[in-house]
Structure formats: C-alpha cells, structure tokens
C-alpha cells in the first residue's frame, strides 16, 4: 500500500480555537478607474456610491476590520465614504505589499475584494459564512455577460489555475468574480505570494506584458462575437451559474477575423478602452494567482443565480441598479439549499415541498440536529408500526417512514439555508439514515413473523446487500479523491499555467521542436484538440455512456437504477402498505441486486480505463 496519505488536506499551521474559517478583516481594493477617469468604486448607486453599498454589506456580515486601498487621485472621494480606513498605495505593487503586510499580521481569516463589485449580500455570505470553504474564491459561469472577468479552471471543488491580467488559464471552467476568502491558516501563504507578486509588479517580466496584449485581442474578439449574436441570447446567461465544468463553447474560440481587423461599434470600443484601463488594477485576480501557484488549496464557491457586476461607467452602474431588482435573494438561497445530487424521487417528490418546511423551521428557530433527531424518532415509530404485523400497522408505518424521510431531507436543507453546518450534524444525519432503514427492516421482519410468515432470511439478505452496496460506494469514493492529487504549479513569473505549458510541450514534440511558448499564446482561446490516438475499448464505452446523458430523462433513469435512498424508502412504503413484508424484501433484493450489477459494471469499466 503506497497511498497512506488521506485526503484531509495538507497539514497547516495550528489554528487558535474558534472557527478557523471565520473572516474578521476585509481588504477592499478601490483602485479601478472608470470612464472619464473617475473611480469605479465611487460610481453612483441609489443616491450613494457602489463602495458605500459594499461597505454596508461587509458591516452587516459582521466584518469589523475593513481597510480600503486606493490611489492618490481617488483618495479624497474614497475618504468621504470610508473615513479613516483608507490606505493610499502607488500602483498594483503597492496594493500587493499592503496585502502582504496585512496577511503577515496574526489574526483570523480575511477577504480581498474589489470596491466596485455589485452583488447580493447573500453572494458574499455564501463564501464568507460557509465554514466548509476554508480558503476559497467566488466563481460564476455566464461567459457572455462576464466576458471581462478573469477565468479560472477548477476541478473537484478546488481552483487549479487562475488568470490575471498577466496570467492565462488553459481550458478554463468558470470566471473569477473578484471575491477571495483566505483562512487564518493560509495568511502566511498569502503574505509570501503577495510579496513575491509585488516584486514582480515593480519590474514585470516580458511574458506578463505579452499576456496583457493577448488579453486585449481576446476581449476585442469577444466583443465582436457578442455583437454578431442576437440581443436576447445575451441576456440568457445573466446570473446563470452552470456548475458543469465545461466551457467548450466559450466565446474565445479561435474563429472569425484577426483581432486587428475587427471594427467595433463606438460603444464597444469605449467599453474595451475602459476595461483595458481597469485590467492592470485587478489586484484580487493577481492575489488569487499567487495563492493558487503557491499550491494553496483554494476552494470554490459559486454565485448561484444571484446578481453580480463590476460597472466601469455611470451608465453601466445605473443599468445594474435596474437589473438587480429582478432578483429574489431568499428564493435563490432556498433553492440552493436543495442538494443538486439527489435522486429522482427525492428531487421531484420531496424537495419540491420540503424546502418550504425547511424555511418554516428556520424561522421558528429549529436547528438541523433537532430536525435530524425528530426524523429518527418518526423512523422508530414507523418501525414499531411495521412490527405490529397488522394491515393498519403496515399502512401507518409506510406513512410514518415517508414523514421520516421528508424530515430527513429538511435537516440538510435547513443546514444549508441557515448555513449551520457541523460535522456532528453530518455524522448524525448519515448514521440516523442507516438506523431508520435497518430498524424498519427489523420491524417488517418482526411483523411478518407475528403474521405467521417469517422472512428473517430475506431481511438478513437485504441488510447484507445494502451494506455491501454502501461499502462499494464509500471505497470507490475514497479512491476517486486520491486520484485528484496535486498539480505541479509553475512560478508566478510564468504567464502560462501547468496545463498550457504541458500542451505547449506536447505540441512542440509534435511539430518537431517549434518554439513552445510562441505556439501556445492562445492557450486560453480554445480547448485545443488533444491528440486522439485509438482509445482503449473501456474508455470508449465510458464516453458513449456519458454521451447518452444528454438525452432527456436518461440522467434520472441512471440515478433511479442505482436505487438511492429516496427510491428505497418509497419502495418500502409502497410495498409494505399495499402488499406484505415478503414483497417488500423481494423488491428490495431485486432492485438492489440490479443496482449492484449496474454500478459494478460501471466501476469495473472505469477501473480498467484508468
């Protein structure tokens, strides 16, 4: 056995007691220039400014120590809004040094964000108040509405590569929305990487300059492509947050005319100029690159369907003010409290109403663990009713089991809705789920014996089958986590990330040693076709298997075939109420047995293909 390290993250410095992910300090970067040389953070917003709105949101989130970085030209205006908390820095290097100094102090977690970002408080809370995200970045999809946001590539919930004005991402998956949370334990890593970036910002490497020019061409092409599309198509991506890590249809495909031949409309030309002036001031993107390149584990937090924008003109800010009115923060929060990975029955027959019970429970002040415990008690009552062996008992047990399952869904949704996550809660939830299920097995078997039709052997088989199935899931999951491994990160001097450098190397080998960096300047443009040798049979079968997911309903059918908890509890309730325990166990064994064959063949294929 070589894999003796577990996937619990790299060891970090000891953390003083308290929530290790709590954020106490905010560094707001109000340095981005808007149209006409104004400060983007000072653009008007509902009679005040964008910055004033953001500072209010941070205060509501309980962040007491707020520092605002700005430039000499904006100092007076920023001081009017932020008072004494202003720190004037000369250039990005100055910002980075200030960040390094702040991160070097001992303290709790901190958040770095641009002063010109307009989003919901809920979007910030989702990142800052979630103890599950230790160090993390706010990400979003929606290429069309966010063509200027710097890209990142994430994999299995962590950022493996990030872009900045001077850094490119190979095959990006989402956009970085500027908000970066750094846990107390990662402050030293931030201090070190920001200090290094500050040195480089003072004397930028040649690669960095080239990359900024490439960004200009990329944005020019992006604007041109957007102008070729219909107006309504552009709105479609607004607030869209596709969790799918696949941006093959990113607008930067390398088609259309060359950047220098493109003639943009005067409005787009103005937007591009605004963006080009603003881009080098994007210190948060640089800070993220620094952390990622230093090998720090940066988690992912998604915007969900909330509003986000960074206007660069008063008109854009006014437009944002109109558009943000269409969003319902509480509805988004409640919807996002429903786990996306649930099975068919849970998604369509339970979560549709259980989320409203969760909201009610939240308003009544119930905790998730209380709900979990109530669910266990209802489950015990269900088992007791099954154990009577009478028809009324079987029907009552069936109804009670469904009630127990609903409350079981409510506890997780309540935890996500109120962001009261706890490890004990997760443990209780899992253990009580198993307890309810197996207690009902026992209840049904006792009831059947009383009714004169003993089914203990069938019950025993169902119990063994389900446990073996779970252990297959656990072990397979544990193996998958180990596969992720750490990506070797190039130093921040390099504009290209590990993926782009590897691709350049592959191409250089293929092209007989052509200049590797020169040939891959378009790393971010297109997911360049990987060389496609004849794939092994197992891998081709897997590809075909994933391809049919696009057909309507297939994804749900596959989920049902795996016989998840919602389907199991529904099968128990229906068969027990309508027939008798013997039928229940036969159905559990038949469906469970089919699920074993189904999941096992998939896993064996994947193991061969690996």
């Amino acid at each position, binding site marked *: 056995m070589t894999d003796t390290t577990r*996937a619990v993250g790299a060891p970090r410095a000891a953390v003083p007691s308290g929530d290790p992910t709590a954020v106490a300090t905010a560094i707001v970067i109000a340095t981005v220039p808007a149209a006409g040389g104004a400060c983007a953070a000072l653009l008007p917003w509902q009679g005040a400014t964008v910055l004033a709105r953001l500072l209010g949101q941070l205060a509501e989130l309980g962040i007491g120590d707020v520092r605002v970085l700005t430039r000499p030209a904006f100092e007076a205006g920023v001081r009017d809004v932020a008072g004494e908390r202003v720190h004037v820095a000369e250039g990005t290097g100055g910002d980075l040094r200030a960040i390094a100094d702040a991160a070097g102090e001992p303290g709790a977690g901190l958040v770095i964000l641009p002063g010109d970002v307009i989003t919901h408080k809920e979007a910030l809370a989702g990142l800052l108040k979630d103890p599950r995200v230790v160090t993390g970045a706010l990400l979003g999809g929606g290429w069309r509405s966010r063509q200027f946001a710097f890209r990142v590539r994430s994999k299995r919930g962590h950022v493996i590569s990030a872009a900045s004005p001077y850094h490119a991402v190979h095959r990006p998956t989402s956009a970085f929305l500027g908000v970066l949370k750094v846990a107390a334990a990662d402050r030293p890593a931030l201090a070190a990487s920001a200090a290094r970036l500050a040195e480089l910002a003072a004397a930028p490497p040649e690669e960095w300059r080239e990359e900024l020019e490439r960004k200009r061409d990329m944005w020019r092409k992006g604007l041109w492509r957007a102008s070729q599309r219909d107006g309504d198509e552009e709105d479609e991506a607004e607030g869209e947050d596709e969790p799918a890590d696949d941006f093959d249809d990113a607008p930067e495909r390398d088609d259309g005319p060359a950047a220098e031949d493109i003639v943009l409309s005067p409005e787009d030309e103005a937007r591009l100029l605004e963006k080009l002036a603003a881009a080098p001031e994007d210190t948060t993107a640089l800070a993220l690159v620094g952390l990622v390149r230093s090998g720090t584990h940066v988690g992912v937090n998604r915007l969900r369907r909330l509003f986000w924008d960074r206007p660069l003109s008063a008109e854009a800010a006014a437009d944002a003010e109109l558009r943000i009115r269409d969003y319902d923060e509480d509805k988004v929060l409640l919807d996002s409290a429903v786990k996306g990975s649930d099975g068919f029955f849970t998604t369509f027959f339970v979560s549709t109403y259980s989320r409203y019970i969760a909201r009610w429970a939240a308003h009544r002040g119930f905790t998730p663990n209380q709900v979990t415990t109530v669910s266990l008690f209802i489950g015990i009552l269900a088992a007791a009713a099954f154990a009577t062996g009478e028809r009324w008992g079987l029907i009552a047990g069936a109804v009670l089991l469904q009630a127990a399952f609903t409350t079981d869904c409510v506890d997780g949704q309540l935890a996500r809705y109120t962001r009261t996550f706890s*490890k004990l809660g997760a443990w209780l939830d899992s253990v009580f789920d198993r307890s309810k299920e197996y207690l009902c097995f026992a209840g049904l078997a006792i009831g059947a014996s009383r009714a004169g039709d003993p089914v203990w052997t069938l019950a025993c088989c169902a*119990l063994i089958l389900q446990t*073996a199935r*779970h252990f297959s899931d656990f*072990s397979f999951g*544990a193996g998958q986590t180990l596969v992720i491994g750490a990506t070797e990160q190039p130093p921040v001097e390099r504009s290209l990330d590990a993926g782009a450098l590897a691709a350049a190397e592959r191409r250089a080998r293929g092209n007989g040693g052509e200049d590797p960096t020169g040939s891959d300047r378009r790393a971010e443009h297109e997911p360049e076709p990987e060389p496609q040798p004849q794939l092994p049979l197992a891998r081709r079968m897997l590809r075909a298997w994933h391809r049919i997911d696009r057909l309507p309903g297939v994804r749900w059918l596959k989920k049902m075939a795996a016989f998840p908890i919602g389907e199991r509890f529904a099968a128990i309730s229906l068969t027990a109420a309508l027939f008798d325990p013997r039928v229940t166990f036969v159905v559990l064994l038949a469906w469970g047995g089919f699920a074993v064959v189904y999941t096992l063949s998939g896993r064996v294929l994947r193991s061969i293909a690996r």
Partner: protein
Amino acid sequence: MTATVAPAEQRPALPSNTAVYRDDGPLALAIGRAAGARVPVPAMALLLLGAGAILALAAFVGRDASTGLAAVAVAWLVLTVGVTSGRWPKESFHWAVPPLVRLAEYAALAWLAAIADAVPAAFALICALTFRHYDLVYRLRHRAEVPPRWLNLLAAGWEGRVIIAWLLLALGALPEAMYVWAGLLGAVSVAETVVAWRRFERGRGTAGEFDEVEGEGE
C-alpha cells in the same frame, strides 16, 4: 458542490481508507503478513474464492450443513481473505476489497446462525456490526480518526467474529449468546462514539469534512 476538505492538524498519517474499511483483526493481519507476499494467487481471485465459497454454501447447502463443514468453510474464508490483508489488487481496484470483505463476513455470520436456526440473532448481530462499520467510514470522513485500539481488539476483526460465531454454533450456544454479543457490541460501540464526539467537539477539531461525499447516491 463546494469544496469540503478542511485543514488537518499535524497528525500521524492515517492508513488508507480502504485498509481501515476492511476491519481486519489480529489474526487476519498476521496471516497477511506471513503469506501475503508469498501466495502466487491474485488478490481479487482470493477474495472472490473466499466470499464465493461462503455464498455458494449458504445458497446450496444452507441450514443442512454440519458443524464440520462449517469449520472447513470458516477456515477457508479466514485463510483466503486473510491473505489479502497483506496482498492488494492493483490500485484502481482497491475499492472492490472492502465490500467483498463485508459481504463475506456478514454472509458467513448469517449462514452459521441459520444452521442453528438462529437467523434473527444474526440479524441483530449484523445490525450492531453495521453501526461499527458505518462509523468507521463516517468517523474517518467527519473527524479524520480511526477507532481506538482497544475497541478494535474487542470487536475482534471480521475473522475473529466469524470464528466466534462458529464456536457458538459448535457449543450449541445459539441464538442466546449471539443476542448477548450483539447487545454488548452495539452498546460499547455507541458509547465509545458518544465519548469520541464529545472529545472532538470540546477540542474544536479542525480535521474532517462537513459534507457527505457526492456520487454515493444518498
């Protein structure tokens, strides 16, 4: 889904999850150490031969098996699957090991009890064991811990439990002794878990994960 890997404090490296999930006792580990490297049979074949023999006997001989046949089957299971504690299949197939060990163990317990017409007692014992085994998984996930040594010794490992079940069968102590065993094992496991959680919550441990793992179908 959001990232859920929280930082771990400085701690000795834990054995791999799959090794913990096997729940080997001292005897299986000793067999693995002694013969794991020497037996020229692939690990997966050993596991399938061990578990397969028990399933075939349970299905085709069932309650009619003699104590002697049961002894031979138990010895075969302990030897074949015991060897695999020191002999793993190639890494991409490690996931298949724990479910096979669990299947073999539970099936053996149920079959041995069935010979003495004590299936409900086996059901009770397996229920107590499922608590132990799910807790192995969840304590690793949420607290990044393995059970204390005394608890593992008390639980005797899968091979110890199968041998004890055979002894109870041979001594004619089924089903009563198995019920007592299930009760004791369950009570001790639950009590230890309660104590361990109290300690963890007091120490404000930062290890472990908040979330269930995706793709488990639950």
